[in-house]
């Protein structure tokens, strides 16, 4: 697809029916289309199989929303999510759909700031603003939003968000001891009951087994993609890989996994031929830190515009979402739910204390991706990641890994300075 004819398709009638602020949304649509063309379609040497993902963006405000509405009309629950702690398997087992809600745009921040304090995480503000401003079709389409008690910004925002859209909150403990597991498992079961209630049906062992396979398959496809990025030259840009990781949160999982695998076949051919998207000398960077929600491509774009290639995201929109699987062969719901709980407990989010597994994970991904430097990326006012950054820095000092830490939000005002810092960091890697 060339940048000249790309557009995000408009569905004004459907938006009207969903109760959206259509004139404003129309502007947002045009802006997103432009940003996407500039950031994505201008890349050279893109894999042909990216066409599907371009199409997913082009249909982001229409095609996929229609699918959700159809599922809802057929009585299936549609759950909006923000965090990788959502036990998606349970929703899928009930025939439902999970859809990750956007929170990566400056455009919706002013809507949020009319209500929420200004000095909180931009992702929380952006997401909240999409609902407050009625400028996200997904938000309008969901049965309920799944929230969790991870960070303070989120858990207190749920109370306010609940006034605009039903928000179900699951308690996620802050430590990982045995008694926390007990609590967690109980929370998983409560969540199951909630989903069953909305679906109007019970979940059985076979449903859950099938859902576990579906999610594993999707996660395996993403693992495979990550693995291929370890080749030099990298067969796919970091921007494209990030986009796929973002789309993972709203696409239909079976179709998505198949498409990612097809793309991976193409990438494997590239790797076999020694072809890639960049020169073999391009510096390879691993990004680690807070999630980069759609359409937040800020850091990847700066890094790759400066001539480097991003080879991995140690992030929720990244490996934290798919690095762990669930055993597919456990008999009985009790065993399945136990394994599911254990899998979710492995997620190494900085909201936990202690969380040293994450530091080991970063080192592991750094080596696997054959990266040459790490950029820690933290959203502004995210206390947990900003403080944990100290340990990431120490890891890099210990292992002699070139390291840069960035704290930023979605506004464009710091782009000039970030560009200088990133270019200087790449100069440092190039030596």
């Amino acid at each position, binding site marked *: 697809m060339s940048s000249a004819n790309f557009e995000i398709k408009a569905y004004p009638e459907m938006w009207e029916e969903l109760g959206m602020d259509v004139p404003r949304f129309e502007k947002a649509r045009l802006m997103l289309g432009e940003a996407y063309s500039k950031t994505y379609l201008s890349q050279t040497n893109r894999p042909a199989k990216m066409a599907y993902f371009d199409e997913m963006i082009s249909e982001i405000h229409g095609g996929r929303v229609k699918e959700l509405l159809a599922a809802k009309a057929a009585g299936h629950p549609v759950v909006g999510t923000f965090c990788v702690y959502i036990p998606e398997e349970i929703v899928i087992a009930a025939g439902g759909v999970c859809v990750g809600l956007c929170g990566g745009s400056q455009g919706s921040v002013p809507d949020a700031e009319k209500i929420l304090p200004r000095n909180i995480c931009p992702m929380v503000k952006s997401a909240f603003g999409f609902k407050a401003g009625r400028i996200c079709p997904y938000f309008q389409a969901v049965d309920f939003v799944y929230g969790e008690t991870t960070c303070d910004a989120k858990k207190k925002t749920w109370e306010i968000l609940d006034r605009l859209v039903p928000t179900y909150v699951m308690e996620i403990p802050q430590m990982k001891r045995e008694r926390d597991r007990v609590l967690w498992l109980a929370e998983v079961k409560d969540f199951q009951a909630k989903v069953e209630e909305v679906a109007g049906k019970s979940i059985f062992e076979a449903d859950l087994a099938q859902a576990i396979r579906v999610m594993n398959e999707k996660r395996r496809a993403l693992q495979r993609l990550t693995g291929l990025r370890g080749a030099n030259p990298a067969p796919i840009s970091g921007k494209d890989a990030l986009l796929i990781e973002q789309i993972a949160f709203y696409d239909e999982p079976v179709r998505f996994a198949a498409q990612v695998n097809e793309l991976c076949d193409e990438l494997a051919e590239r790797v076999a031929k020694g072809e890639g998207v960049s020169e073999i000398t391009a510096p390879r960077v691993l990004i680690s830190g807070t999630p980069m929600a759609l359409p937040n491509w800020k850091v990847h774009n700066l890094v790759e515009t400066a001539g480097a290639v991003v080879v991995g995201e140690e992030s929720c929109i990244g490996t934290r979402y798919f690095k762990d699987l669930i055993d597919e062969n456990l008999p009985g719901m009790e065993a399945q739910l136990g394994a599911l709980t254990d899998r979710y407990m492995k997620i190494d989010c900085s909201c936990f204390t202690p969380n040293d597994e994450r530091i080991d994970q970063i080192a592991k991904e750094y080596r696997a991706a054959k990266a040459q430097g790490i950029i820690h990326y933290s959203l502004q006012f995210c206390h947990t990641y900003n403080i944990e950054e100290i340990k990431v820095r120490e890891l890099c000092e210990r292992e002699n890994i070139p390291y840069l830490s960035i704290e930023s939000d979605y506004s464009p005002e710091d782009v000039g*300075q970030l560009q*200088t810092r990133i270019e200087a960091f790449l*100069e440092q890697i190039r030596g």
Partner: protein
Amino acid sequence: MLIGIDLGSRTVKLAAVRDGILTDFQLSESGFDPHHQALAMLARYQPRRIIATGYGRHLAHKHFADQVITEIKAHALGARHSFPECRTILDVGGQDSKVISLDAAGRVVNFQMNDKCAAGTGRFLEIMAGSLGYGLAEFGEAPFNSYREVEINSMCTVFAESEVISLKNHGSAPADIARAIHLSVVNRLVNMLNRLGMGDSLVFTGGVARNRFMVAALAEKLGMEVLVPEHPDLTGALGAALHAGTLD
């Protein structure tokens, strides 16, 4: 001849180098059109290569420069030229300040830049000088005549300015207030330096390094020697010109 040109936020600096020696330089306000400003400055030379650095480096690359390097690398090269052993550089320019650590061979191993506001930059000092009615050169001398201690706590330009006004209204002497302002900037810079850790001397570059009191106060606070090159504001341009020489 090789040329390095530093298109900063406030000024454009040019350094001409032959055989590794600075032979000519220019400095002028960036104005509204730094690119044409730079072209006018370049007109009198026939350089073999032009390397651009600074905020406007990419613009320069688009129009006339052969290559770009960041301010970080440029300052490292420029500072090493005057002080071949140096390991830590503090650069305080118009709109940003940065600390750069080098290894023994002069390679950048780490750096820090100030946040996105004016705090701790030349601009901050300029605004404060203005609100006290000092010219920039006088402002850096005034604190030497201060005999009473007062304090400025805010690093935000707006709040600091209102602190200055309230001190004035309470009858504090301008020299005392000027000293307080300088010390508040020094504290901020020392914090940044401490974050990176440093050796036993510091090279101080950028326009603010011309301010005598800043240099003295930094040396005192750090308890170490603070070295200032002959043309501190030219360090980036010089570094860029020297880099041009490594490309043969």
